[in-house]
């Protein structure tokens, strides 16, 4: 079977690189073809990368607390670019400090994300979900 392609990156002005590398490693080990656009990634870079590589999913990380601002409008741009079917996943430290995750999740879902993960989510959880979602 052909490998599933995923676009992975850390959105906005965020430079936290360690989690990104771990995810890249874990996903590659799990048999995915990972297109890692690294840190400081703009929304356009996610979209362009997904288009050229025909990605099956876009995985967004945000660690520094400003994810909400950075993620707003990404779904709309995806729709505009013809990527409406490509699911959006987001994880990391999505808001500043500790907040009720149910509220955070709800909020990101309203922004168009298909799956929203709480801080400290292990790669295994993501891999299990991807296997279920992308068949």
């Amino acid at each position: 079977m052909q490998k599933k392609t995923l676009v992975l990156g850390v959105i906005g002005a965020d430079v936290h690189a360690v989690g990104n590398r771990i995810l890249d490693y874990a996903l590659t080990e799990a048999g995915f073809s990972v297109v890692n656009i690294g840190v400081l990634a703009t929304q356009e870079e996610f979209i362009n990368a997904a288009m050229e590589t025909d990605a099956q999913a876009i995985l967004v990380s945000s660690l520094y607390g400003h994810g909400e601002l950075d993620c707003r409008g990404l779904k709309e741009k995806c729709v505009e670019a013809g990527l409406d079917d490509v699911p959006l996943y987001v994880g990391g430290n999505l808001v500043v400090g500790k907040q009720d995750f149910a509220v955070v999740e709800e909020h990101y879902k309203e922004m168009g994300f298909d799956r929203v993960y709480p801080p400290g989510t292990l790669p295994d959880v993501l891999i299990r979900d991807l296997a279920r979602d992308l068949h």
Partner: protein
Amino acid sequence: MELALLVDFGSTYTKVTVVDLRDEKIMGTAKAFTTVETDIMEGLKQACADLQQKLGFDPLTAKHKVACSSAAGGLKMVAVGLVRELTVEAAKRAALGAGARVLDVFAHRLTASELRRMEILKPDIVLLAGGTDGGNREVIVQNARMLAQSSLQVPIVVAGNKVAAEEVAGLLRGAGLDCRVTENVMPELNKLNVEPARMTIREIFMEKIVSAKGLSKAEQLIDGVLMPTPAAVLNAAMLLAQGTPGEPGIGELVLVDIGGATTDVHSVAKGEPSKAGVMLKGLPEPQAKRTVEGDLGMRYSARALCEAAGPNRFSGVLGDKSCGRLEAFLARVTARPDYLPKDEEEWQLDEGMARVAVELAMERHAGNMEVVYTPFGASYVQYGKDLTPVPHLIGTGGVVVHHREPARILKAAWFDRNNPTSLRPRSPRMWVDREYILAAMGLLGEIAPDTALRISKQCLLEL
């Protein structure tokens, strides 16, 4: 004596150069008007006859006889890709590196009206890219289908998603088109791979474009028209920078060629961040990079140059008084592309235009530093090449060659404290290619690279 005759069929002049390979020196040069409209041989024979007068023997008896050409409009191409910043840009760079004039670029699915525009532009070659290997295939296949239906009858270089290549080639060949499949210009996201496409373009140039442009007759007298002139210049720049196994190069360099219609910039430099803590983003740059600015020329595109610059940049360079005379000067030079300034004020205007052309062309060629302000301080991101540490800047083209103090023009290429995000050379040594010899040396590089390199070094005049 072992002689080489190097011919440059230019848009205006056919220039011939004879080199003695044993003594490693230029024996003579001559030029005559290019006669591609009637018979390309007339101009060549005329130039050779002139040179025979000077040398006392017929240059056509030389052992090696090779040519490059930018006659009959040069090598005209269009590039097609998927995303503008990715495969479209990669395809454009491959075409520029092959010495082509890129008439236009097209992104995503070609529309009927874009196809019509392409038919009107009449490129010599179409470069079709799109999708990383294993990535998007629908768009390149659809674009091949469109090209197959169009009235374009030109060779098509396919340099896109390898998974789609067979289907694409089938569609194009099915329509009777000459289609050459080569490696993807962007095999993985943000990986540039322009060399195979460049080589394929060059092959087609030698096999087909030369005769399509009425140059094949020249091949009765000379061994071959090997490449477009800009590719020869880029060759020379690479030779000069990188050296050969037998002769060291001078190191990284930037070459600016200010012409009547365009300003070309070539850089042979890695361009990695020169400061610590700077993050590199965007499509990687080829080590040998060429850009062509069709709106920055001294004569044919003088008016476009002024528009591109805007009034402020000009008054900054010229002062308000001279600016008043600019309009009349523009009218004069666009009407007569071989016009040379007559008095001091006209020289100043010419110099001013050249400085603006160099500054803008370098701004577009060099990389940029962007400062990303996070709530917690600044981060630095670099797009394109950091040319600040490049040690050599070479100038050529009419205005540089004729000017009393070409350094004043070339300094416009330098790093500017008032525009610190533009990563231009900080304080390079400056050289002039007085004899416009580099195209010929790029050609000679195909025969005797060590010699071509040594002669190039001799011919550059330090300012």
